[in-house]
């Protein structure tokens, strides 16, 4: 899959190429790819854009969360951030209005519940954001069957959609999803919503192993990864590590004096260091 995408410059293929290339580079450097999530509009619109730009200097991919009124797959941390962001007027339309302030140093991925994208129109949205360095989508409320039904029309001019796999999935289903995803496979670390936790579902290791056996693809793990130790632990199995709520928490508790995001940068440095695999 990852070798065949160089030529045709459709939006899907271009986006896929940009995303998978980052995994390839990380692999060559002997580490897992670092994927960071941050919500647009928190604690306010300009600051969130600064933070996203800052994150993109360290991360391999940056997921930008579009605030939604009913984030059913998210825990308290992101729920609160979205509530504040919505009060600040952050939504899909104001995100588009602010695209010029986005200065991404790595490919971006738009993470949104489906409704805002459905209202905006996925093709128009893809066209607008792809010009500003965004290479793909993640939709937490789009399972395999609905992706196939709604987004697989031929000639659909949109960015690639990265699908999620859950520890609840059978191997058969996990492999089906891995075949259908248009970038990497987003493996959910454990049952539950987003937010820090200290244990992961053991089944994910088996799923990762078996999917890799039957398919050439990249797997990233996310949900609840909050410290550098966990990054090291999971890095030995997964091609990518996704960190979200932990970054939001740092900004949430940020001291007033910390204007240049020192704490955030320190955290990202530590995390990045731990993405390097230790050779046995």
């Amino acid at each position, binding site marked *: 899959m990852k070798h065949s995408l160089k030529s045709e410059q459709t939006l899907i293929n271009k986006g896929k190429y940009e995303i998978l290339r980052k995994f390839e580079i990380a692999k060559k450097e002997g580490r897992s790819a670092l994927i960071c999530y941050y919500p647009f509009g928190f604690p306010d619109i300009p600051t969130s854009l600064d933070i996203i730009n800052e994150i993109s200097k360290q991360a391999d991919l940056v997921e930008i969360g579009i605030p*939604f*009124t*009913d*984030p*059913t*797959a*998210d*825990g308290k941390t992101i*729920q609160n951030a979205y*509530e504040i962001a*919505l009060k600040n007027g952050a*939504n*899909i*339309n*104001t995100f588009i209005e602010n695209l010029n302030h986005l200065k991404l140093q790595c490919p971006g991925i738009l993470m949104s*519940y*489906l*409704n*805002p*994208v*459905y*209202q*905006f129109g996925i093709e128009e949205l893809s066209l607008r954001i792809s010009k500003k360095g965004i290479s793909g989508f993640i939709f*937490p*409320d*789009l*399972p*395999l*069957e*609905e992706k196939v*039904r709604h987004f697989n029309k031929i000639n659909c001019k949109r960015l690639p959609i990265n*699908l*999620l*796999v*859950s*520890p*609840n*999935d*059978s191997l058969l*289903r996990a492999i089906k*999803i891995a075949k259908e995803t248009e970038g990497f496979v987003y493996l*959910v670390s454990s*049952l*539950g*919503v987003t937010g820090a936790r200290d244990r992961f579902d053991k089944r994910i290791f088996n799923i990762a192993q078996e999917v890799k056996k039957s398919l050439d693809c990249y797997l990233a793990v996310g949900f609840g990864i909050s410290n550098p130790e966990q990054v090291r632990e999971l890095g030995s199995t997964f091609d990518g590590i996704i960190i979200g709520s932990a970054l939001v928490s740092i900004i949430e508790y940020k001291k007033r004096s910390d204007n240049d995001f020192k704490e955030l940068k320190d955290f990202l440095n530590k995390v990045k260091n731990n993405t390097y695999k230790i050779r046995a």
Partner: protein
Amino acid sequence: MLHRNRYFGKYGGSFSAETLVPLLIEIEEAFEEFKKNRQMKEELEIMLKNYAGRPTPLFYAKNLSKKIGIDVFLKREDLLHTGAHKINNALGQMMLARMMGKKRVIAETGAGQHGVATATAAAYLGFECMVFMGEEDIKRQAPNVRKMKLLGAEVIPVKSGSKTLKDAINEALRFWIANAQDTYYLIGSVVGPHPYPRIVRYFQSVIGRETKIQFKMLKNRLPEALVACVGGGSNAAGFFYPFIDQKDVKLFGVEAGGSLKDKKKNSASLNYGKPGIFQGCLTYVLQDKSGSVLEAHSVAPGLDYPAVGPEHSFWKDTSKVEYGVVYDEEALEYFEILSKEEGIIPALESAHAVAFLEKLAKKGLKEAVVCLSGRGDKDLETFFKIRANSYQ
């Protein structure tokens, strides 16, 4: 794989977190098995009869008929055990939970009626039960909160968002995602991802089936029209479904328009919303231009929901059902009228359907059957707070 047959026209589907998909598939399998199993269907039928009190009467409301100038029949779901149609669905889905070997059921509730029905069925059938309820509704429906606690259920106050029904569903979904293995989510209306809209409509269709037989016994024909209130749409779906292809029976769903004083805040998603993806399905949703879901409003907590079951969206677009609007003030007026004329205190939700009769009479209709989905005990406090001056 999720079933192909998960849409109603373009509406419905299964837009849920991947973690829940294997469960939704499992529930669908249990449901298909249930439908084929005569023994289990009989068991449910006996429970509905001896425990819940079915069949419910079809009652000719002579005084109200005279007052409004249209023949009114009431399908008395308010006489069921726990006081509303919700028990039909709670007992039915509890059988699916048992087939699947789950020990715990969770539910959301707005008016508290679905919460009480679920807590009741859980007490009777031996399940652990948790009910998610918005803080705003806990305040408005205190008697039902006490009932749920007495029945042994744990009531979880929901503090997020508008603190009403939609937020209770969000929280129930979040809990379910984390506890999918041992928990059955017993959803209370024809909403959410497939297969729920079909399951709930199936268990509520007993309302329409009985009505058809009872009306035939009475008049030896079908009624001219049916009227039901629409929150998520379960009493309406169950009432309409057996008549849906009967072209000579007019079907009217009644949405809550909120207060006449602030028409912007309402719960009439079919009338004022547009298609969107919300809480697991594609359906009409009250939303702004950016796709943010709006806060609903209705004096009836069971109607206070910014979306509607996907099958109703399909019925609206295909003109199988006509959907009207009744405002808080009109519902309150008919809450009082039905009490005084017939000695029946309706739920504020059901009072929306009753109030709509006036509009049907003006349109020249001669006869209608109203689904009186529940009784009004739970709403007395709300009513007397608003009418404090007229009753001293």
